[in-house]
C-alpha cells in the first residue's frame, strides 16, 4: 500500500542512496588510483551496507540481494582474506555501476535486467576466494527477514541463560541507541544495525518502550523507542561506532564501557514472574536511566513493566562517545524553487517600490530613501543566499562521467583513467541537469576519438593507460568546465581533408588551426572514417554546442598534435538571474546580457560608414563591424538615419560574432529575474527570455546570438571562404 508518507520515505531513502552511491564511487575511484586504504574499504562497505539496509525496509529484494553479495566480498577484502587485485577493483567498479542501476530502477519502479546480477554474482563468487561464496550471501540476504528459530525455553529464565557468561566478568561496550524520525524516513532499520553489531561479538538488545503512548496519541512516523545494547568482547570502540556511522545524522548513539553496567540484575528488583516478559532471543536489559516506569500500567499489573534500572558499580564514570550529527537538512527541491520564485518577486517589488519612490523626487538623505537602500541591499542578499541553496557541487556529474568512461573504455578496448579536478565547484542545479547529455557525449568522444589505441600510445612513448580529465573552476562569475585528454590531439590535416571532401569548405579555404578545430562543430562532420557505435567525432558536437549555447554557455577547443585536446565550456552559474543592461528602444524597454556587451559608444564620437543603401558599419580600432538598429530588428520602427541621439552597444556573441546595436538610451545595469518566454508564451527569434521591471512592465531579454546572427558575419578571415550553403544558420567557433 502506498501513501503520501510512504512516498516521502521512499524519496528520502533514494536521496540517501544518491549520497551513499557517491561515497561508494569516491572510494572505488580512490582504490582504482591506488590511493585507497583500509578506511576506504570501510567507507565503501558501509555505503553498500546502508543501501542494502534501506532497500530491505522497502522490500526491494533485487537490490538487497545484490548489495549483500557485493558487501560480502567487500567484507572479505576488509578483513584481509582476499587481496585488492586490479581485476577485483574493476569488478567492484562494475558492481558499483550495476548497484546504481538497481537503485535507479527501484526509484522508478522499473524492472531491471537480472542478467548482469547473475554474471556479476558469479564473478563475485569467484573473487570471494576458495573459502568464501558470495552466493551464500544471496541466500542469506534473502533470508534476512525469514523467521528465526527462537529458543524460548532457554529464555524463560534470563539468569539461567547467562550462567556460562557471568555479567560481572564481562568486558565490552554498553550502547544506548535512540532513533530520530529521519532514520526511518531514510529507509534504515535499527534491527539491521543491531545485526551488524552482532557480527562484532555477542550482543543483548533491550528496548525501552516506556515512552510509547497509547495509539490515540501516537504519531506513527515518530519513534518513541530507545535501546540498550550490550556488546561483549574487546572490539575497539571505533569499530563499534563504524556500525552507526551511516546513521550518525539521524540517531543518537552513546557508547560506554560495559563494566558500568556489569552488575547483574538485583533479584529483589525483578517483579514476579507473571509480570516479566520472557525476552525472546535477548537478555532483559534495563531501560535507560531516568526513564520512570509507567506507573499507570504497572498499577494494572501490566506486563510492560521492566526490570529496574541497573545500579552503576563503584567504577568511576568514563566518558561516552557520541556521534555528532552534521548540521544539514534535506529540503524538497520544489520548495527551494518556490522560494526562488518568491525572492524573484520580492526583487521585482523592490524595483517597483524604488521606481515609485523615485517619482516622489525626495531629497537626498531622506529617510525613505535610506530605508529603501537598506531594503535593496537586504533583497539582494536574500536573493544571493537563496541562489546559493540551489547551487550544487559538480562532483556527482563528474562521477557519473566515470561510468561513461569505463563503458566507453570497455567498448573501445582502451585503458582509461578519469581524473577529476575542482569537483567541489558549485553550479545551479538546473544547469547541472542540462549538462548531463552534452558532457556524456564529449566524454565518450574523448575516449573513442581523443585517446589513441594502447599500441599507438606505447609507440608514442606514452603510458598505455590514457587519461581523461574533467575539471571545473569559477572564473569571472561563470563556471568553466574542461574535458581534456592526453591523446593524439586533433589531426588537422585529416579534419581539413574531410571537410573538403564533404563540401563543407572550398579547397582553397584559408583556415587557421583554430578554424580547422572549429569545423568539428559543424553539423554532420565526422573525422572518423567510419562512425563508431559509441560516438562519432563531429556527429553530435554541433548538437552539444547548441545545448551549451542554450544554457548561455560558450565552447572552445585547444589541441596540440600528439599531446591532447581540451574542450572548454564556460557557463553561467545560474539560469535564474541575469546581469543585464536595461535599454530603451523605440519606446520599449529591453535587457541586453552584460556578458555580451563589450563597450558602449556615442555615435558622434566614432566613425560610422554607410555602405550601400541602409547598411552601416562601425570603424573601430582598425576593424569594421556591422551596425544594426535593435528597434528595426524587432520591427518596432524603421532604422534611424541620424544616430547622434542614440547609443551603440558593441556586442560579441558566444560564437565570436561582433556587431554594434543601436539603442535609444541606457537606463541602468542591474540583475534581472529571468522568466521563461517559452513556458509563458513561445520562442521568439532574437529573444531569450523576459523579465518584469520595477514599473510592472515586461521587458524582453535580447539573445545576442540571435540578433547578431542576422547582421554579423561569422568571424575571422576564413569565414569568407566557408561555403555559405553548408553553414547556413551556423557559425564557426574559434579557440
Amino acid at each position, binding site marked *: 500500500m*502506498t501513501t503520501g508518507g510512504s512516498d516521502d520515505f521512499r524519496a528520502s531513502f533514494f536521496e540517501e542512496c544518491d549520497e551513499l552511491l557517491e561515497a561508494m564511487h569516491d572510494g572505488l575511484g580512490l582504490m582504482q588510483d591506488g590511493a585507497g586504504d583500509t578506511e576506504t574499504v570501510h567507507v565503501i562497505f558501509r555505503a553498500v551496507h546502508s543501501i542494502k539496509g534501506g532497500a530491505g525496509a522497502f522490500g526491494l529484494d533485487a537490490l538487497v540481494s545484490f548489495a549483500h553479495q557485493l558487501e560480502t566480498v567487500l567484507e572479505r577484502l576488509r578483513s584481509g582474506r582476499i587481496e585488492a587485485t586490479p581485476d577485483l577493483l574493476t569488478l567492484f567498479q562494475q558492481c558499483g555501476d550495476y548497484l546504481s542501476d538497481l537503485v535507479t530502477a527501484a526509484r522508478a519502479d522499473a524492472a531491471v535486467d537480472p542478467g548482469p546480477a547473475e554474471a556479476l554474482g558469479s564473478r563475485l563468487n569467484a573473487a570471494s576466494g576458495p573459502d568464501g561464496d558470495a552466493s551464500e550471501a544471496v541466500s542469506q540476504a534473502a533470508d534476512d527477514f525469514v523467521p528465526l528459530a527462537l529458543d524460548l525455553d532457554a529464555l524463560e529464565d534470563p539468569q539461567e541463560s547467562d550462567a556460562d557468561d557471568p555479567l560481572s566478568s564481562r568486558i565490552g561496550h554498553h550502547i544506548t541507541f535512540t532513533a530520530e524520525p529521519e532514520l526511518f524516513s531514510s529507509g534504515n532499520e535499527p534491527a539491521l544495525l543491531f545485526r551488524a553489531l552482532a557480527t562484532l561479538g555477542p550482543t543483548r538488545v533491550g528496548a525501552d518502550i516506556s515512552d510509547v503512548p*497509547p495509539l490515540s496519541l501516537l504519531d506513527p512516523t515518530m519513534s518513541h523507542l530507545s535501546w540498550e545494547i550490550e556488546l561483549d568482547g574487546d572490539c575497539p570502540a571505533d569499530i563499534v561506532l563504524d556500525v552507526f556511522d551511516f546513521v550518525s545524522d539521524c540517531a543518537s548513539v552513546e557508547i560506554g564501557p560495559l563494566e558500568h553496567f556489569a552488575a547483574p540484575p538485583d533479584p529483589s528488583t525483578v517483579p514476579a514472574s507473571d509480570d516479566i*516478559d520472557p525476552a525472546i532471543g535477548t537478555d532483559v*536489559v534495563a531501560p535507560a536511566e531516568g526513564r520512570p516506569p509507567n506507573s499507570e500500567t504497572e498499577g494494572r499489573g501490566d506486563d510492560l513493566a521492566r526490570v529496574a534500572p541497573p545500579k552503576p558499580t563503584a567504577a568511576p564514570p568514563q566518558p561516552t562517545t557520541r556521534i555528532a550529527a552534521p548540521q544539514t537538512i534535506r529540503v524538497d527541491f520544489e520548495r527551494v524553487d518556490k522560494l526562488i520564485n518568491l525572492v524573484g518577486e520580492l526583487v521585482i517589488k523592490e524595483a517597483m517600490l524604488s521606481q515609485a519612490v523615485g517619482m516622489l523626487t525626495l531629497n537626498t538623505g531622506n529617510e525613505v530613501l535610506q530605508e529603501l537602500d537598506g531594503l535593496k541591499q537586504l533583497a539582494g542578499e536574500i536573493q544571493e543566499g537563496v541562489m546559493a541553496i540551489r547551487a550544487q557541487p559538480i562532483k556527482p556529474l563528474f562521477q557519473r562521467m566515470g561510468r561513461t568512461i569505463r563503458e566507453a573504455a570497455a567498448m573501445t578496448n582502451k585503458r582509461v583513467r578519469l581524473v577529476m579536478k575542482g569537483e567541489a565547484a558549485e553550479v545551479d542545479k538546473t544547469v547541472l541537469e542540462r549538462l548531463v547529455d552534452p558532457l556524456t557525449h564529449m566524454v565518450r568522444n574523448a575516449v573513442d576519438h581523443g585517446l589513441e589505441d594502447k599500441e599507438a600510445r606505447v609507440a608514442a612513448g606514452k603510458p598505455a593507460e590514457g587519461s581523461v580529465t574533467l575539471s571545473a573552476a569559477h572564473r569571472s562569475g561563470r563556471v568553466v568546465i574542461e574535458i581534456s585528454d592526453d591523446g593524439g590531439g586533433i589531426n588537422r590535416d585529416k579534419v581539413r581533408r574531410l571537410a573538403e571532401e564533404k563540401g563543407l569548405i572550398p579547397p582553397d579555404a584559408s583556415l587557421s588551426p583554430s578554424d580547422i578545430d572549429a569545423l568539428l562543430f559543424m553539423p554532420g562532420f565526422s573525422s572518423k572514417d567510419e562512425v563508431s557505435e559509441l560516438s562519432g567525432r563531429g556527429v553530435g558536437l554541433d548538437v552539444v554546442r547548441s545545448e551549451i549555447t542554450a544554457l548561455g554557455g560558450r565552447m572552445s577547443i585547444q589541441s596540440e598534435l600528439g599531446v591532447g585536446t581540451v574542450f572548454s565550456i564556460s557557463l553561467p552559474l545560474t539560469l535564474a538571474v541575469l546581469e543585464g543592461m536595461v535599454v530603451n528602444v523605440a519606446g520599449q524597454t529591453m535587457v541586453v546580457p552584460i556578458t555580451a556587451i563589450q563597450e558602449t559608444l556615442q555615435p558622434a564620437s566614432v566613425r560610422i560608414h554607410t555602405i550601400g543603401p541602409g547598411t552601416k558599419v562601425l570603424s573601430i580600432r582598425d576593424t569594421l563591424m556591422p551596425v544594426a538598429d535593435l528597434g528595426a530588428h524587432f520591427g518596432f520602427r524603421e532604422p534611424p538615419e541620424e544616430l547622434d541621439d542614440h547609443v551603440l552597444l558593441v556586442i560579441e556573441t558566444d560564437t565570436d560574432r561582433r556587431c554594434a546595436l543601436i539603442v535609444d538610451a541606457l537606463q541602468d545595469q542591474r540583475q534581472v529575474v529571468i522568466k521563461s518566454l517559452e513556458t509563458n508564451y513561445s520562442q521568439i527569434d532574437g529573444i531569450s527570455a523576459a523579465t518584469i521591471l520595477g514599473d510592472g512592465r515586461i521587458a524582453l531579454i535580447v539573445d545576442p546570438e540571435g540578433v547578431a546572427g542576422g547582421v554579423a558575419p561569422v568571424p575571422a578571415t576564413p569565414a569568407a571562404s566557408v561555403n555559405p550553403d553548408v553553414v547556413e544558420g551556423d557559425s564557426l567557433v574559434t579557440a
Partner: protein
Amino acid sequence: MSEGYNLEAHLDSAAAPVLAADLKALRGKSVRVDGGAVRFAGTLSLQVLIAARRQWLEDGQDFTVHPFSGALGAACCDLGLSLTDIGASPDDQNDMERTA
C-alpha cells in the same frame, strides 16, 4: 465478540501510518490481530502494535496478536521486544514450533 484484523505481509515504515489508522478505526471493540502472514516487520509498525496494545489496555478491551509468523517473532527478537509487548503470547510461538 472480537473484531479480526489481518496484518499485511510487509510492515515497513511506510505501512505504520496505515496500520495505525486501521487499528484506530477498531477502537472500542476487542481485537484479534492475525499476524500469520507477516514476512517483514519494521520498528515503526511494531511500535504501532505496542501503542495499540497500550490503548486497548487503557480502554479495558482485549488486544491480541494471534497467530503470528516466525518473521514477526524474529523482528521482535531483533529489536529486543517481547512478544507480549505487541499483544502476542510466547505460548503461541511454542505451539507453532511444535506443529511445524
